[in-house]
């Protein structure tokens, strides 16, 4: 990448930006994500505009068709579908991003230590990674989500707190999702370890910790960013599945997944309810995948050139 940067007389960042902007689908997807995130964050404002309360139950107005007051209609308890969708988006996007970031930090730490120190530590970590990869992901997540937190030493209050299902799902998804990043980071760290600039740093007496964080980590940024972006989509899919099965985000906290649980029960009476949350998940996940794809092409120009030849 440094060669290309020199010939074009532009900073690497400018080059990456230019290449990303050329990827039209990724650009559109990034726009869609920004709009979705903004709409979710502004849910209370929209609530004010419409003059509604997202949790207000209105039993005289159940399963109403879309109208000016309720743009997407109401659900089985007379709550506004659009508002529930926006508040659900907050939860789903938060879980997706938080779990992907936690998994990335975990994976980077494991991969970096493994690749840099090698030897027994590497063997141990890589066996652990192989073990986690060999696990049946979905059944395992279901068991992890069903675990009684009180048996793990949490107090009854903490275990039943409203936001606990939120933190729990971030934790368990991160716990099984770090392997991709760990493998990527380890492979790159392994090759960087022998490069002259690392040897030079060591000769100058830099500590292992400093070499890893200051000299090796910045060179790992691109694969980590790409893998993390791609994993946000996957996490959102996992969260929605678990919530749909009643094991993830617990009502009354809405998430795109648990909105669909109700929808399945009402599928004969109000099939439209099953459409919106799923569509929101679908659009978000495909947008994250396109952005990840675009970032990959932008950060690793070789992949694009190889493709074009």
């Amino acid at each position: 990448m440094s060669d290309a940067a020199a010939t074009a007389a532009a900073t690497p960042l400018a080059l990456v930006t230019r290449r990303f902007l050329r990827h039209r689908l990724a650009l559109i997807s990034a726009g869609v994500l920004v709009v979705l995130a903004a709409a979710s964050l502004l849910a209370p404002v929209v609530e004010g505009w419409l003059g509604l309360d997202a949790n207000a139950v209105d039993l005289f107005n159940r399963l109403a068709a879309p109208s000016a007051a309720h743009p997407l209609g109401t659900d089985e308890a007379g709550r506004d579908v659009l508002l529930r969708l926006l508040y659900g988006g907050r939860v789903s996007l938060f879980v997706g991003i938080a779990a992907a970031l936690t998994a990335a930090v975990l994976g980077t730490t494991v991969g970096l230590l493994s690749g840099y120190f090698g030897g027994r530590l590497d063997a141990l970590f890589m066996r652990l990674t192989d073990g986690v990869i060999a696990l049946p992901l979905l059944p395992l997540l279901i068991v992890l989500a069903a675990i009684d937190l009180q048996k793990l030493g949490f107090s009854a209050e903490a275990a039943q707190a409203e936001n606990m299902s939120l933190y729990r799902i971030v934790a368990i998804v991160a716990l099984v999702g770090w392997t991709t990043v760990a493998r990527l980071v380890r492979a790159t760290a392994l090759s960087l370890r022998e490069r002259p600039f690392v040897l030079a740093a060591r000769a100058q007496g830099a500590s292992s910790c400093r070499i890893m964080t200051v000299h090796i980590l910045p060179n790992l940024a691109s694969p980590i960013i790409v893998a993390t972006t791609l994993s946000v989509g996957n996490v959102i899919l996992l969260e929605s599945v678990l919530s749909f099965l009643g094991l993830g985000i617990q009502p009354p906290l809405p998430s795109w997944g648990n909105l669909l649980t109700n929808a399945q029960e009402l599928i004969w009476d109000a099939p439209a309810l099953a459409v919106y949350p799923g569509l929101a998940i679908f659009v978000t996940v495909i947008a994250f995948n396109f952005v990840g794809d675009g970032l990959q092409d932008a950060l690793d120009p070789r992949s694009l050139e190889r493709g074009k030849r």
Partner: protein
Amino acid sequence: MLRFISERLIQSAVVLAVMSFVIFGLIGLMPGDPVDLMISADPDLTSADVAKLREIYGLDRPVAERYGNWLLAVLQGDFGFSRLFAKPVFDILGPALGNTLMLLGISLTLALCIGLPLGIWAAVRPYSVRDYSVNLFAFAGISVPSFWLGLLLIILFAVILGWLPAGGLGTPGMDGWSDKLIYLVLPAASLTLASVGGHTRYMRASMLETLRQDYIRTARAKGLSERRVVLGHALRNALIPVTTIIALDFGTLFSGALITETIFAYPGMGKLTYDAVMGNDFNLALVCLLLATLVTLVGNILADLAYAWLDPRIGFEGKRQ
């Protein structure tokens, strides 16, 4: 080669043993234990009775000891009793496994028959409109939540059109293959659509890579038709990594069927696992999870074997010769 296989088998056995302990521990952390369930069924039990029951069931022992007893029983072919179904665990697994394998067999075959040709078709004209449309379809396939896809299929074919049943395994009182087949259509379609995107992408990427090789240029220089170049020369090599990935994915597919089976109330391994966990059926949940782990491990071994067998340049030690 024998050495390679035996080494991998031993390795997998170790992973399975470690996993069985981890899963045993995790299941012990699920809410309630068998005695709690008895208490809720019989309010007359005194605390002395409870303590006694815990002792009889060995629940007052440390995890390691309980695990040892369980393992000993399993090695003698005793997988315990299912609370939910009031049957030995082993008797429940057979039919569920059969149902799942039938569903997976149909979906995998369909997904490959659609995904592989589509991937090749796109790779032959990279960066054309055709390629972009196939790519879009594949991206949509890997991004769609499979349970939502299932719900949409139910809405369309069961609620609106009324052509197909929304779930189950067969109409009560009706036997025969045609009836069973009707109930398989929607789950199989949902599972196929959920996995076809991945296959298409793998095939396209692998074919693109292969078409860039020197021997392909040679084949074209000889004046072979494009058809012979792609199907005669490139395909065989492009299929090698795809085969590996399919074997690796089999475990994911097996446990991923859980969602489809639950939505369509299809009595396979996935629904059984879900019901066991939700119903606090510890013995059954344990065996279901171990079986899923076993399938994943076998898939990994098959992937390694297929890779070494299909590409003679790769030895069984995993190094290029």
